[in-house]
């Protein structure tokens, strides 16, 4: 089966490379037969990558320890549920997983291309299949997950205990999906540059695909946060690890694109800028893939260093330089149809939003690569840890929150003083009293007051948008208020979906700000019967309990919790040893409410039965997860296809040109 799978990889590499060239030639020379052949090659490539993936999964389930990758990431006693996760648990398998997703995306693009952008689909396919061929080349010749060992092992090494969790199915898969899907908007942008058709056709498809990728990347990051917080016991949900940063940078750049693309759609401006943003986003995705696989930086997520690093570095360089050269060649045709009229306009506020988002992405990038830079310049590898990011990002995130409130309040082109007064008065009426109240009730430090009143300002701005829309529907259509709200959202999905995403961001930011600024923790060694008090919680250590599984040992601290003198149940915080691994896995004790989380980590224990416990009270953490969910729901609403709008778009007329059937508006 492994031989068949490897043959499929090699064949897929050859066919995808052929497809990239054939699709490009067919598009340039307008040879319909060649395009049909290339289109079929897309389907064949998907079939072959599916076959290779099936061979790998089959090898995992049949415990074929003659395959090095299977032996490294599974063992006979690994539960079936985690066996599948072995596919993406390591470097070679995750590369195959990404290649499989990319081949599936290519099929979707080709199928969609039969209905829209017919004449451009060959260009898009050429880019997609070119990138896929490169990945398949790496898999075939540098990182083969189906590589056999000279002698089969009698037993595998098993999956890392840290990865034996249900989060292994949500966090890495959504992140890899997000990274892979960003290839599609990049392919549309490159197709526009290569073909020279630089009108808005590519923007609509790129925006839609970017939103889909953005959802997956958001989910991937959120699932990672949940994993870190509830399972790994990082003491937080975000550790500013280089690989976490790698997933965050393209998210920031894509967010900037999703905002600036509105200006191009609405006013025909920022054409060059949008191209640049798509290129930056995809380059950052490749950079993230490179960081994880190159061994350049120390990270809990990093795979072993190998030949893949230089190959991915070459691809990143190739993509960046190639796309910038194309951009340079098409520069004269990327002129905006209009110019910005005023600094006080929605366009300018969106530009400010873009600036801060990219500034934040640069700050993260700079912090991530600074150790390498410092090593190259001074020969000293400087440490850049979480406190650096927290201090540099805090003012930028605050600026982003404020801009999020300001942008929708300012009119297009040039806002008049009347416009500003009318739209700012209500949000300010929310923010100012909130700031005063927070100050008077003793909230400190002052930047906490600033952050929460900024969130109040944004909430006021969004509520104002909803209220005015609902009132307009009530007056114009006679809808009752409860009916007007869902109809308003449903009939303006893109606009109000965006506002719902912003509500999610407010909730998420509220949770992050509160848990970061007002978290309280105590670390103490306690004997049975002794208590730790944090705020109004009392956590009493009852006993240490040892429980042995077939191949694991768990040490659990049994805890009684009371709050304000009232019984609040029990908690368990434990350390788990899996197999022969001497490094324990932490399972935190967590009592979560909308108001706050009681969070207990068993840091260690002594020979005489004492437990070393870290007890923390983290306010409003639950709102981070709720906010993330609201963001995803809002994005889905904004993304939901609008049939009526689709019917109003100009219908492409099928006209055979030079043998290639193309559409003409």
């Amino acid at each position, binding site marked *: 089966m492994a031989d068949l799978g490897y043959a499929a990889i090699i064949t897929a590499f050859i066919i995808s490379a052929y497809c990239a060239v054939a699709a490009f030639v067919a598009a340039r020379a307008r040879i319909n037969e060649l395009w049909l052949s290339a289109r079929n090659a897309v389907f064949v490539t998907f079939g072959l990558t599916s076959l290779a993936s099936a061979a790998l999964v089959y090898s995992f389930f049949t415990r074929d320890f003659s395959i090095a990758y299977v032996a490294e990431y599974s063992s006979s006693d690994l539960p079936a549920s985690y066996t599948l996760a072995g596919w993406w648990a390591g470097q070679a398998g995750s590369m195959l997983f990404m290649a499989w997703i990319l081949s599936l995306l290519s099929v979707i693009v080709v199928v969609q291309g039969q209905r829209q952008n017919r004449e451009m689909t060959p260009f898009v396919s050429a880019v997609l299949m070119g990138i896929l061929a490169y990945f398949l080349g790496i898999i075939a010749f540098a990182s083969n997950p189906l590589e056999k060992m000279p002698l089969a092992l009698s037993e595998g090494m098993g999956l890392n205990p840290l990865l034996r969790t249900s989060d292994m199915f949500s966090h890495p898969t959504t992140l890899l999906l997000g990274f892979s899907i960003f290839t599609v908007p990049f392919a549309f942008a490159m197709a526009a540059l290569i073909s020279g058709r630089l009108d808005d056709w590519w923007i609509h498809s790129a925006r839609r695909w970017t939103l889909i990728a953005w959802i997956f990347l958001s989910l991937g990051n959120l699932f990672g946060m949940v994993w870190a917080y509830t399972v790994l016991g990082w003491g937080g949900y975000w550790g500013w690890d280089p690989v976490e940063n790698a997933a965050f940078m393209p998210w920031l750049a894509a967010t900037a694109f999703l905002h600036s693309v509105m200006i191009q759609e609405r006013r025909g401006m920022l054409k060059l800028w949008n191209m640049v943003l798509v290129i930056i986003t995809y380059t950052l995705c490749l950079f993230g893939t490179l960081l994880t696989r190159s061994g350049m930086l*120390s990270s809990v997520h990093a795979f072993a260093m190998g030949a893949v690093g230089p190959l991915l570095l070459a691809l990143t360089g190739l993509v960046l330089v190639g796309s910038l050269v194309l951009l340079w060649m098409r520069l004269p045709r990327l002129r905006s149809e209009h110019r*910005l009229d005023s600094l006080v306009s929605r366009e300018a506020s969106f*530009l400010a939003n873009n600036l801060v988002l990219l500034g934040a992405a640069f700050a993260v990038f*700079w912090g991530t690569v*600074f150790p390498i830079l410092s090593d190259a310049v001074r020969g000293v590898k400087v440490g850049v*840890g979480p*406190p*650096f990011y927290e201090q540099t990002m805090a003012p930028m995130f605050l600026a982003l929150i404020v801009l999020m409130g300001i942008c929708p309040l300012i009119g297009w082109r*040039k806002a008049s003083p009347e416009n500003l007064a009318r739209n700012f008065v209500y949000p300010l009426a929310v923010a100012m009293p909130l700031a005063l109240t927070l100050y008077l009730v003793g909230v400190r430090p002052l*930047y906490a007051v600033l952050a929460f009143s900024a969130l109040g300002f944004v909430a006021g701005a969004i509520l104002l948008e909803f209220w005015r829309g609902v009132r307009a529907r009530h007056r114009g259509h006679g809808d009752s208020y409860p009916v007007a709200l869902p109809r308003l959202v449903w009939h303006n999905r893109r606009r109000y979906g965006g506002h719902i995403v912003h509500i999610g961001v407010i909730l998420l930011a509220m949770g992050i700000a509160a848990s970061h600024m007002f978290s309280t923790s105590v670390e103490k060694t306690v004997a049975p019967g002794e208590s730790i008090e944090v705020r109004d919680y009392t956590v009493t250590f009852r006993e240490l309990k040892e429980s042995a599984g077939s191949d694991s040992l768990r040490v659990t601290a049994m805890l009684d919790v009371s709050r304000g003198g009232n019984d609040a149940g029990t908690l368990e915080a434990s350390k788990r040893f899996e197999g022969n691994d001497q490094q324990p896995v932490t399972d935190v004790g967590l009592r979560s409410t909308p108001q706050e989380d009681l969070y207990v980590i068993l840091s260690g224990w002594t020979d005489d039965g004492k437990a070393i416990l870290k007890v923390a009270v983290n306010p409003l953490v639950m709102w981070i997860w709720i906010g993330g969910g609201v963001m995803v729901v809002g994005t889905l609403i904004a993304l939901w296809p609008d049939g009526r709008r689709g019917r109003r778009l100009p219908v492409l007329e099928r006209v055979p040109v030079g043998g290639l059937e193309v559409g003409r508006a």
Partner: protein
Amino acid sequence: MRRWMLLSATVLILVLAAWPSTTAAGDPPSVHEIASGLMCQCGCGMTVATCQESMPCTTSDAMVGEIQRQISEGKSKQEILDSFVAVYGEQVLALPRKSGFSLAAWVTPFLVLSAGAVLISALVWFWAKRGAAKPEVAAAEASSEEFRSYEERVDQDLALLE
């Protein structure tokens, strides 16, 4: 332009420098406080504090032991951090120093952001000035945009879609 850039950069650096740290100066050092300022040298990429809480290794165990020993000797936070730098080099610090080459880690993001802000402001100002030279077009467009009420805009959107 240069003066603006300098002014913006100075303001941002001052804001950054004034950004309050999580611990008040003068507090006696705790193990967690110091462990949060040191990177674990096992290769996990986490601070010693985080490594200890999640998946402790022998390296972070040894580092915590050393922190405890030095605290018991009455050493200050800075003295303890310096002692680790003497052993492992600057890479052990979770925060780059705000001096020498490492200052670039702190300043560069804000300089880039300031430069971007100045550039965008200058471009918008230039475009707006050039647009003002064609008042007959701009004024007509602007007036129609400016004085259209928000309710009308929403109504138009809804009417278009229904």
